[in-house]
């Protein structure tokens, strides 16, 4: 009897353990969550092995260093399997795992509302670059990898892994992945060895394909549809059939025929499945955008300002008309002789192409910086080349009260405007749209101004049309774009789709130090301190926010001080390695000082590509007259001002 019971117990134990084993068995790579955990663990093991190897290596021995390089490469490849999740779920830890720059002045999440702080990156890219140094310190090398191992632990914390249990994060991770495929992954932005860019890309595409399969199995209700999956398979085939050289890779076709259509399908699924975000990563991205090249891909500025909730078309027209009058009205300046249109000429893409920098208020001296075009300002989170302002309305106010620009005061400007009966009546009628304000404020004026000039920022260029509608385009444009994305390294700072310094997930603007000279002879570095006048730091000396190259054909002269007169000069400047390449001392230059080895023909092709970014903007004629004032002095005002 005892024997019988014992065998029964044994049998029971066996049954329980079998069921347990089979349960863990079914939880292998076919299960989405297990795939996540397995891949993070595998990556961590690779990182640890790399750390061990560094610890045991003799760094004076080139053979051993080569071995470390190999191990870094293997770890990078392993990273491609988890990159999809990591970048989205915890972007700050990611910088410790594969940060592109040793020191960055960045904000935690979103630059608009936080002061930047100095962040030291770590991880694989920096370790690889550090190995190129003449003196390699083992402690530093170990720190670079050690910190990345610690950072990886974040991805195993419950606060992160809880997101993996629902489907929402998946489509948002995927959106970021597709945007990075268009903007970063093929440019060598964070892959120091350009030969590895395409093999790593292919590996990532395949790893994500497996991830898709696991996801669809685990979340059949909200699965990726067949159309998406089949296009994705064709994307892998496309990359597989390309050569391994990024300089011959067809970036144009990759984005036009594959990545952008995949993005469109993913956006549809985001809406269809009611995907909801809980992450600051998605702060700026627009769920309703229908293409990567949609001007509303992300939201950066509120052009309507205080009138933001106005949707009534009659009122909007009135705001626009008042904004236009004010834009041309010198009443906003201290001496009633200058208007916004004095420097931002509406007939010249809202800049002034005839002067290097504009006249100061005193009509004698020149301003230190070139007048920026107002087209597409709304696509920047930080305004001005030093990022001084976070809203367009505050920026407008700053010009108004700047003693060397328009030389007025808020009170004076408002008083003079309201003394004109027409302005007073028309703005008073709009007061009902801003019930929080009992009277007309300077914000009503600046909001009308920004609403007016921003309407010229909604147009598309032939390049956008080629991308969005898959229209054919001049083959030279395509070649120029491919150079832009690869050999010329332009796209490592001017990111798809706006070709400004805002990169996925489009919440921050990048600032770069390129060593722009004070004059064309390169006698000295421009004295302008740039970003460091706003946030004092050594890294930010002479740093400027990366501008967009859209409409660049029509917005000469170029650079913050307007030192270059045509696009060829600008590209030559980069081709020669910026300021350092031309012999200037710029210890913190973020641009490589090596030559890009671009031929004159290649430069020409890049210029043709830039020309394809000229937007089809319809400009307007100036107003015929300005509102009459009770003040006799103000009756002399000229439309647009006199200087």
């Amino acid at each position, binding site marked *: 009897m005892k024997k019988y019971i014992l065998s029964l117990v044994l049998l029971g134990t066996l049954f329980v353990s079998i069921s347990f084993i089979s349960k863990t068995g079914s939880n292998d790579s076919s299960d989405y969550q297990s795939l996540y955990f397995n891949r993070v663990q595998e990556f961590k093991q690779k990182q640890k092995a790399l750390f061990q190897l560094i610890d045991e290596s003799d760094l004076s021995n080139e053979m051993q260093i080569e071995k470390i390089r190999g191990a870094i490469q293997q770890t990078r490849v392993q990273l491609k399997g988890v990159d999809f999740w990591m970048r989205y779920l915890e972007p700050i830890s990611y910088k410790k795992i594969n940060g592109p720059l040793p020191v960055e002045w960045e904000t935690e999440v979103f630059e608009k509302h936080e002061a930047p702080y100095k962040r030291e990156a770590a991880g694989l890219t920096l370790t690889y670059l550090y190995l190129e140094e003449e003196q390699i310190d083992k402690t530093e090398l170990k720190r670079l990898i050690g910190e990345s191992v610690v950072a990886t632990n974040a991805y195993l914390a419950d606060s992160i892994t809880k997101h993996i249990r629902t489907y929402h994060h998946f489509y948002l991770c995927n959106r970021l992945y597709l945007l990075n495929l268009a903007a970063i992954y093929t440019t060598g932005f964070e892959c120091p060895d350009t030969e590895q860019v395409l093999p790593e890309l292919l590996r990532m595409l395949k790893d994500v394909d497996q991830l898709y399969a696991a996801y669809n199995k685990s979340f059949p209700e909200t699965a990726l549809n067949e159309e998406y999956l089949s296009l994705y398979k064709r994307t892998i085939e496309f990359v597989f059939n390309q050569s391994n050289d990024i300089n011959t890779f067809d970036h144009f076709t990759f984005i036009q025929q594959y990545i952008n259509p995949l993005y469109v399908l993913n956006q549809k699924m985001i809406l269809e499945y009611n995907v*909801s975000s809980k992450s600051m990563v998605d702060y700026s991205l627009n769920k309703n955008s229908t293409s990567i090249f949609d001007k509303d891909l992300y939201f950066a500025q509120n052009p309507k*300002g205080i009138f933001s909730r106005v949707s009534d078309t009659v009122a909007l027209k009135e705001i626009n008309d008042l904004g236009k009058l004010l834009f041309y009205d010198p009443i906003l300046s201290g001496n009633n002789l200058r208007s916004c249109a004095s420097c931002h000429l509406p007939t010249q893409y809202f800049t002034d192409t005839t002067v290097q920098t504009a006249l100061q208020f005193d009509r004698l001296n020149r301003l230190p910086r070139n007048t920026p075009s107002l087209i597409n300002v709304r696509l920047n989170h930080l305004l001005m080349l030093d990022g001084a302002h*976070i809203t367009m309305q505050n920026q407008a106010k700053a010009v108004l009260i700047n003693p060397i620009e328009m030389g007025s005061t808020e009170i004076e400007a408002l008083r003079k405007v309201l003394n004109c009966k027409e302005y007073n009546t028309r703005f008073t009628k709009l007061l009902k749209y801003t019930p*929080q304000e009992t009277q007309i404020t300077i914000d009503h004026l600046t909001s009308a101004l920004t609403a007016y000039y921003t309407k010229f920022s909604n147009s598309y260029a032939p390049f956008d049309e080629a991308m969005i509608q898959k229209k054919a385009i001049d083959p030279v444009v395509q070649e120029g774009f491919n150079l832009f994305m690869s050999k010329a390294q332009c796209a490592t700072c001017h990111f798809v789709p706006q070709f400004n310094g805002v990169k996925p997930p489009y919440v921050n603007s990048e600032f770069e130090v390129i060593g722009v000279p004070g004059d064309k002879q390169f006698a000295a570095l421009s004295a302008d301190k740039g970003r460091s006048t706003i946030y004092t730091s050594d890294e930010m000396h002479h740093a400027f926010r990366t501008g967009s190259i859209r409409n660049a054909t029509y917005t000469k002269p170029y650079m913050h001080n307007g030192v270059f007169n045509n696009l060829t000069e600008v590209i030559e400047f980069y081709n020669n390695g910026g300021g350092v390449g031309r012999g200037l001392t710029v210890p913190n230059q973020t641009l490589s000082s090596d030559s890009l080895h671009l031929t004159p023909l290649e430069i020409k092709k890049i210029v043709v590509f830039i020309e394809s970014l000229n937007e089809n903007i319809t400009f307007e004629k100036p107003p015929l007259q300005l509102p009459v004032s009770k003040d006799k002095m103000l009756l002399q005002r000229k439309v647009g001002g006199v200087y």
Partner: protein
Amino acid sequence: MYFRNICIVIVVVFISVLIVSSCVSQKKIEYVFPDAMAKPIQEEYYRLSEKGRVLYEINCASCHTKKVKGKMVIPDFTEEQMGAYSIRIANEIHEDKVSEARVSAEELNLITYFFTYKKKNKQ
């Protein structure tokens, strides 16, 4: 005995909730400023808080102002709960209604002033 005690507690709590809630009136918003705050600064914050109140009414009240015992009650939110711009992604409705395109950062600040200085509801 034990059951009776619980019953008494429940009844007492119920009655006190009734009394308290009937006292709450949202017709006129009262503000409470720290005593240490100078009068002119109090007046400035009053002005800003009132702007915040209007913005709350426009953007938030349709979901957040609730009828409690026949009276419309504006809830209390701490500065921490307002959470700067993270409020924009607090939930699906906020993604749309409190998006940057609809409520600017400055306006969010005004709404936060309103909740900071608004007299708290009686518990």
